[in-house]
């Protein structure tokens, strides 16, 4: 069974951590990650960049995509899925988002750059 674990925190506070504080948290997280890797239970894991770097694509009243600065802040919808894409710039990411939006006309998106990416580790334990 696959589960996605979504991590929430207060951005103001996390970005007020000193380098040492940040490193201390990451080191503790790494201990947990390493155990999961040994057990072959860890898929991709990543750390997102701040919401200030995000762009949202919402549907306007006519169902046309509307591009807005910042995170997706509506509470009416629920998070139902996500994609990791590898592209040159925001324009390319937006083009892909539009294509996805056409395939799934009522959906909304937040495009957020990834700061730290670890790929699927499930095979690492066996290797």
């Amino acid at each position: 069974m696959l589960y996605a674990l979504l991590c929430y925190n207060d951005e103001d506070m996390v970005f007020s951590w000193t380098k040492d504080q940040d490193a201390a948290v990451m080191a503790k997280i790494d201990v947990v990650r390493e155990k999961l890797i040994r057990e072959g239970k860890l898929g991709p894991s990543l750390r997102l960049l701040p919401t200030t770097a995000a762009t949202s694509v919402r549907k306007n009243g006519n169902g046309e995509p509307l591009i807005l600065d910042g995170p997706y802040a509506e509470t009416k919808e629920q998070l139902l899925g996500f994609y990791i894409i590898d592209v040159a710039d925001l324009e390319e990411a937006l083009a892909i988002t539009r294509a996805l939006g056409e395939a799934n006309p009522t959906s909304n998106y937040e495009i957020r750059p990834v700061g730290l990416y670890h790929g699927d580790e499930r095979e690492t334990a066996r290797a």
Partner: protein
Amino acid sequence: MTDLAWLNAALVAARPQAVGALLRYFRDLDQAEEAFQEACLRALKSWPNNGPPRDPAAWLILVGRNAALDGVRRRSRDAALPDEAVLSDLDDVEAPLAERLDGSHYRDDVLRLLFVCCHPELPATQQIALALRIVSGLSVKQIARAFLVGEAAMEQRITRAKARIAKADTPFEAPGAVERAERLAAVAAMLYLVFNEGYSAGDGEARAQLCDEAIRLVRLLLRLFPAEPEIMGLTALMLLQHARSTARFDAAGQIVLLEDQDRSLWDGKLIAEGLALIDKAMRHHAPGAYQVQAAVAALHARAPTFEETDWTGVERLYATLEILQPSPVVTLNRAAALSKVAGPEAALAMTEPLADRLGGYFYFHGTRGALLLQLGREAEARACFDRAIALANTAAEANHIRQHIDRLSQNSTRPESGPSHAMRP
């Protein structure tokens, strides 16, 4: 991380909002700071036992305000505020209260707090010191160390700056659109000063942490004004420049120029964030000086090597910057980029008219020397390098020029490097 470290991070994060709101209530900076101080003391007592509140800023504002109003009869039309025992486990209570007290004021509170530090009569160093003291909450000792001055001198400087802004008319009404834009521009300039103060410092110095602080504050500003392309540009500019910080100094603490930096040392996370922001800003089609400078930094960040830099793009961006914010230094940077695209002769011609205004500028003579060297005009190149060395501000600058002269002395081979890029490393 200890409990105390967590707590401290929460207080630091909440400070701009909380002090900003308290300043609006009391209309007095000292009173606002005292109230915040008092609220922090109570937080240190309360939070470790009751757990941190869901919205630390709202908690600190309420408790700080209550503390300051202790002993003062509140006007009867004021709704009674719950005491802090109630506030400590306030999930339900807190949100509507905070809403009623502040609502959308938060944004303008933080902007106002930053803006009071930008008083035009205050010299740049005082603006920076004041912002670090009031908005960031650094101690006078920390700020004094960052500026390499004594604590007493810094204390005096800050006291004087505060006295001056106390006399000034601080605008407390919610600003209109034009005023808000003006305040944003002033605050952006001040934050860039804070960043530059850190950027120009050597590696590992106390001043270098000012870059982190400037980035923290500009991110906060961007969150409050998420659709302002120039604030995106400034944030991107700081991130992209700061990404190079570990590559900018060698083991001996000497500055390493952009062309010689080990790009594998650049911080990929900061670059990703900077590139995302400059991409966002460009979509607004409202170019500004910060965006253009960030776009130049982005071209450097995207280039796998110095040689593979998109010099045509860099040259065009500097041409745009010449229009937006004309300055001889910008033209000099443009000339350095032009030499990569059109050759040293064209670049040299572009620098000619700058002699009057940049005659006392190290990079002017360094750049011209390198261009002349490329053209094989060695005697003139040597004269330029000699002038540059005489004008160098740091040992690293002088060393860089000496390398050119050394090459000149042993010169049997053609010099390979182009003009030293006038843009800072």
